[in-house]
């Protein structure tokens, strides 16, 4: 254990804690993405270089700066919840549905028979935590405007009328559709999870942070299992408009959508928003072993940091981002040298990509140009709190010993990256995935091949 490279800050108590910390492995995965619902669809499309960015079909987007997005294929939410729970799907915002679908797969994938699949439940709900990241859920405009219409005074909302006859148009449970903690809430109710529960709301960094926090919860022995990650849908007028106002969107006019998002490429012209969710089942190692679970990977390191630059841009020096990378590797007792694959955020926004590369360079040094990089946003778009898909990808890369492609990253400017538009088989023993949010939260997670950590 002394190999970890302790800092002078480590007190004897800290050393003891690290020694006693439980080991945590991934035993289940659930994915909902623009290139497929379910691990198998997702993974095969990812490796084939399929792009999920297409013209927006859920509303007429011709008046927006961008008319394309990463949309999840059609689904029926009723197929993913127990019969007795179908009624409750009426009060699920789309973000919640995505989380519920991913959770259903994750449980099945992990072979865990919660109360959703067995009576009585075969899991110990009190020792099962939940930490699902969420975004700022946009109220459905049609539903709310339909109520406002009753109380309108021209194009103004007349609050007098609203109080008397407008608000009554809304379903009594209206508010509960949009509370960010309702993702975790529905998942805990469906599966009967009563352990430590949390909801991280840090935009794009939410999933990584939620997974990191669930990791700590199991490490300190407060639960044996946790479902964690995040989900979000920005494919709605408000979601797209927020990015349009910030001038971050790729207008994509006259361009093949599958060529639109170019992470780290010198020709990058902006991001494409999307929707999706990625959840993991984390499990204490001995617990997983004793029930004979399939172990996909070990979650070995986590760190987070904050920029102090400004609200709308990442710190161009990448200082804090680099620190998160450095600390996550240290936490995993790994070195940059050992990293076999990097799954960064890579949004295709030039100033953001530059800042991210600066940060990665600070954390990885010269190894940044060696480590294969999978820049998967080119295929799945920017999923906000749904970036748990990135984390699931990191885990699957280890499981399949395969490096997913970076289909639109060809020329990267000063900092050379090891990218290929083809997936390839390779020894993948240690994977780093990093993320930042608008608002300056940075997070890094390190996964290792299961046998690596015996």
């Amino acid at each position, binding site marked *: 254990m002394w190999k970890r490279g302790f800092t002078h800050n480590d007190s004897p108590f*800290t050393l003891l804690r690290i020694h006693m910390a439980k080991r945590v492995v991934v035993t289940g995965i659930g994915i909902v993405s623009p290139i497929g619902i379910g691990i198998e669809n997702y993974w095969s499309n990812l490796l084939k270089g399929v792009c999920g960015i297409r013209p927006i079909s859920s509303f007429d987007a011709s008046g927006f700066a961008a008319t394309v997005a990463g949309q999840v294929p059609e689904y029926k939410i009723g197929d993913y919840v127990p019969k007795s729970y179908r009624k409750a799907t009426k009060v699920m915002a789309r973000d919640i549905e995505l989380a519920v679908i991913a959770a259903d797969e994750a449980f099945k994938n992990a072979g865990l028979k919660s109360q959703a699949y067995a009576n009585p439940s075969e899991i110990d709900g*009190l020792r099962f935590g939940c930490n699902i990241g969420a975004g700022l859920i946009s109220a459905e405009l049609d539903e709310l405007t*339909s109520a406002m219409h009753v109380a309108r005074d021209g194009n103004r909302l007349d*609050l007098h009328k609203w109080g008397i006859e407008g608000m009554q148009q809304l*379903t009594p449970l209206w508010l509960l559709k949009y509370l960010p903690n309702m993702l975790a809430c529905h998942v805990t109710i469906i599966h*009967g999870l009563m352990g430590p529960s949390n909801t991280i709301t840090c935009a794009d960094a939410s999933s990584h942070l939620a997974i990191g926090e669930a990791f700590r919860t199991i490490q300190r022995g407060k639960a044996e299992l946790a479902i964690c990650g995040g989900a979000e849908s920005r494919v709605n007028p408000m979601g797209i408009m927020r990015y349009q*106002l910030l001038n971050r969107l790729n207008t994509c006019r006259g361009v093949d959508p599958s060529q639109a998002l170019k992470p780290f490429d010198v020709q990058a012209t902006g991001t494409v928003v999307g929707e999706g969710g990625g959840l993991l089942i984390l499990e204490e190692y001995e617990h997983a072993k004793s029930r004979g679970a399939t172990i996909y990977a070990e979650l070995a390191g986590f760190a987070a*940091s904050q920029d102090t630059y400004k609200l709308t841009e990442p710190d161009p020096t990448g*200082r804090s981002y680099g620190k998160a990378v450095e600390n996550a590797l240290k936490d995993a007792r790994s070195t940059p040298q050992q990293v076999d694959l990097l799954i960064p955020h890579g949004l295709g926004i030039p100033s953001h990509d530059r800042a991210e590369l600066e940060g990665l360079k600070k954390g990885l040094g010269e190894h940044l140009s060696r480590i294969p990089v999978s820049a998967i946003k080119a295929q799945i778009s920017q999923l906000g709190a749904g970036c748990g898909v990135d984390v699931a990808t990191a885990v699957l890369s280890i499981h399949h010993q395969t490096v997913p492609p970076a289909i639109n990253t060809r020329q990267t400017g000063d900092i050379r990256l090891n990218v290929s538009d083809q997936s390839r088989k390779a020894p993948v023993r240690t994977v780093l995935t990093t993320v930042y949010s608008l608002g*300056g939260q940075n997070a890094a997670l390190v996964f290792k091949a299961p046998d690596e950590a015996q």
Partner: protein
Amino acid sequence: MNRVVITGMGWITPMGHEIESVWKGLLTGQTGIDYTTLFDASTFPTRISAEVKGFELKKHLGNEIQQHEGAGRSTQFALAACRQAWEMAGLRSDTLDLDRVGIYFASGEGSLDFQAYTQSALSSWQPDSGKIDAVLWAQSAARLMDAIREIEQEPNAALPHLAMLTGARGPALNCLTACAASTQAIGEATEILRRGDAEVMISGGAHSMIHPFGVTGFNRLTALAENEKLKSVLGEDNPRRASRPFDNNRGGFVLGEGSGVVILETLEHAQKRGARILAEIVGYGSTADAYRITDQHPDGTGAVVAMKEALKDAGLSPSQVNYINAHGTGTRENDGNETGAIKQVFGDHAKRIPVSSIKSMMGHLIAAAGAVELIACVLSIRDQILPPTMNLETPDPECDLDYVPNKARPACVEVAMSNSFGFGGQNDTIIVRRFI
């Protein structure tokens, strides 16, 4: 595992903008609740709320306001509360290892840009199809909405502001678990310090839902005290009598707004710099009810386990707890369930532990409630006095604990517990102890 102590506290509340005056108000049964002025609520079922009054960020930040002028209302509260806490702790950015200073906050979503939002929606509404015309909406929204006003609504928007104010570059997270959020944030911040991933954590919460759609949401859920119902039960809708935790005539909570911020440090870090230690955080428990999205578990299982976990974490027996600052919202459901849960955890001792709810005076600050209530617990330990539950006039047979009715009470307080329960069955409990 590091011990974790509180060395600074600050709040912006409906009862005032600094620690001592608000504390005095809480001990003398003042109220922060009045008729709603932030918008025209005159036809809403609920026309009362606990607004923060007379707040100006400039008074708190002086010239440093520049970077923060675009901040949303609740983020402004957070900035002012953070400044107070930072100063009370005697921290200086130039003497800290800022990579080891983190933030774990519970900021709610910001208020909608109401005019732009409603106008865009209404001007593009197509009554025949029952849908908005997305093309018209986009034109209107692009013209009326503002990028910064939109981004400041994100629940993580408080983090960069607090980071810029203090220089904090360590782990930064925002959790939003409804009414339990800031208790959760403080609990999780404690865990980060215990583990040694930071030396100082800024924690707490900030929220304002006193806007038309916020009140609408809670009114539709029938969660709020309503004026006509108050009149029929009390003969008047006097705002100061509206929030009635544990009273038999309670009818819902009163929506408040504000922020509470605490500075947490590892004991080692606090002692090394000679900081004044206000209290120690000794226990934290978090659970989910996994029951229903609308209701708490009637058996109180989730709340019971949260309290038990916190006690176990603190290594304390139930009889060592001297005071419980209840979630005590004043809804029929919560107060009965919480009372039952306390009895399950504390057994015979339950009737001997004073339990009070400052929401009777402060209103319910939603994501910020737990932080403000934890600060009250620390002040109780400091001054050996308990804030009362006001408006407790008619006992409810189901609520039969000692709620410190209507008058503050001197008491020996070494250990205090603070409960927070959120919509969706989120339960969090924190235990603080006099530092010895």
